[in-house]
């Protein structure tokens, strides 16, 4: 084998070690998704085999040499009905099966841990609730349902983890969600699959799945000191949100304590659920989201807070289960009663300014 160039050997070696035909199954949904996939592959193979067999068999049996005169046949209603109804039935099975899978992938369980994902040209920013920030990396534990709340800061992106069989578009101006539960520790690819401009192909990263213990260690080692909710709290204070949303009886804004996931009645009479998307909209476009009994005095924050900032605020509001936290915020900012133009406490400004887009 001396005459084969070593370079070629290297190539072959590299290829063979890097070669795979099927992605790893590293999430709970992956085997379910693959079951349907293989069912479809099977149906396709059977269908293809039937067509190929028919064509080959007829080509041999009825070629001109063997069968010089064609016999004219009009058709056969029975046969045609057969190959209408059987594919239809199979397609309907695939439809129902696929729909069940679809709802499973896009309906997060109630106990899922929420991680925020912001897509921008050309990177993924990940915000853990504990305040850990990552770029093009996502650390997750096994055995825990993770819900991703995804938004884009500029154009369409798409957050795809092939090993988990999940994918969701990151849309500018709207939250989308997807969830998964990782099963096997390891490092997996993370892609942006929606074409998003020049460096689309650089918008890739790694998903690192760890055992819960390792994950805990990682969380502790990479914390930035503040949790995401604390970041939000600072921003909340620096934007003087608490001037009105202070849970006081005479407050000009509705109390935000326990507002998350509550049913709100708006000034228009509509009832809405205050989910992430609603909170985001209410911050950016308050005039359209007036809670019943309040006047539309809140200014818009469109263009003043980055998507990361909004996420921090939403996370903060989410965690306001009692007004204890709110009181704490009030205490730290020494809010004088009835003074609307309140400058934030000087000590908190730098941290907050990190979030505020000029």
């Amino acid at each position, binding site marked *: 084998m001396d005459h084969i160039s070593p370079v070629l050997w290297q190539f072959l070696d590299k290829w063979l070690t890097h070669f795979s035909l099927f992605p790893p199954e590293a999430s709970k949904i992956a085997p379910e998704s693959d079951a349907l996939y293989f069912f479809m592959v099977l149906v396709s193979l059977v269908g293809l085999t039937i067509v190929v067999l028919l064509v080959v068999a007829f080509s041999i049996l009825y070629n001109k040499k063997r069968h010089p005169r064609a016999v004219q046949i009009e058709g056969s209603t029975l046969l045609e009905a057969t190959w209408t109804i059987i594919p239809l039935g199979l397609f309907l099975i695939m439809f129902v099966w696929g729909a069940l899978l679809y*709802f499973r992938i896009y*309906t997060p369980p109630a106990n899922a841990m929420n991680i925020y994902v912001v897509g921008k040209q050309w990177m993924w920013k990940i915000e853990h609730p504990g305040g850990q920030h990552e770029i093009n990396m996502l650390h997750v534990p096994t055995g825990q349902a993770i819900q991703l709340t995804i938004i884009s800061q500029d154009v369409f992106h798409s957050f795809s983890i092939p090993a988990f069989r999940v994918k969701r578009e990151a849309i500018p101006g709207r939250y989308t969600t997807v969830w998964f539960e990782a099963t096997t520790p390891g490092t997996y690819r993370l892609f942006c699959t929606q074409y998003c401009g020049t460096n689309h192909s650089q918008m890739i990263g790694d998903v690192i799945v760890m055992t819960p213990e390792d994950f805990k260690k990682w969380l502790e080692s990479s914390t930035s000191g503040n949790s995401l909710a604390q970041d939000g709290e600072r921003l909340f204070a620096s934007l003087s949100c608490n001037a009105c949303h202070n849970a006081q009886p005479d407050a000009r804004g509705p109390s935000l304590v326990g507002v998350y996931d509550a049913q709100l009645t708006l000034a228009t*009479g*509509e*009832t809405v*659920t205050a989910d992430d998307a609603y909170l985001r909209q209410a911050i950016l476009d308050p005039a359209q989201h007036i809670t019943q009994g309040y006047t539309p005095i809140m200014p818009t924050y469109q263009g003043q807070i980055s998507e990361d900032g909004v996420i921090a605020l939403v996370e903060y509001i989410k965690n306001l289960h009692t007004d204890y936290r709110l009181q704490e915020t009030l205490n730290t900012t020494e809010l004088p009663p009835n003074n609307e133009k309140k400058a934030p406490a000087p000590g908190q400004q730098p941290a907050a300014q990190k979030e505020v887009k000029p």
Partner: protein
Amino acid sequence: MSELEKQHEQEHHIVGPGIYVIVLLLLLAGTAATVAASYFDLGEWHIAPGLTLFWNPVVALAIASGKMLLVVLFFMHVKYSTRLTKLTVLTGLFMFLVLIGMTLSDYMSRAWGRW
């Protein structure tokens, strides 16, 4: 008269000025009515929570559709045309409604939330 000639005659039915004048007056009356209606608040109908029908747009669009029908049927001679022409007009309306209806169905059902 043979079948062919009958069809032939139908295709070249000439609509006279009399009908045109009547249609013109109806169209102008419709315009006046729709403008007048826009000055009144015709109220609304709460079909279900979150789903309200305002009468003003409904009336305005109904009058507009009436005018459209007059123009199509008489000015454009569809009333006297072949079935093919009628089918073509209906196809156009149908596809227009498919475009609007199916797209809006996505937007409307998003508010229904999860299962």
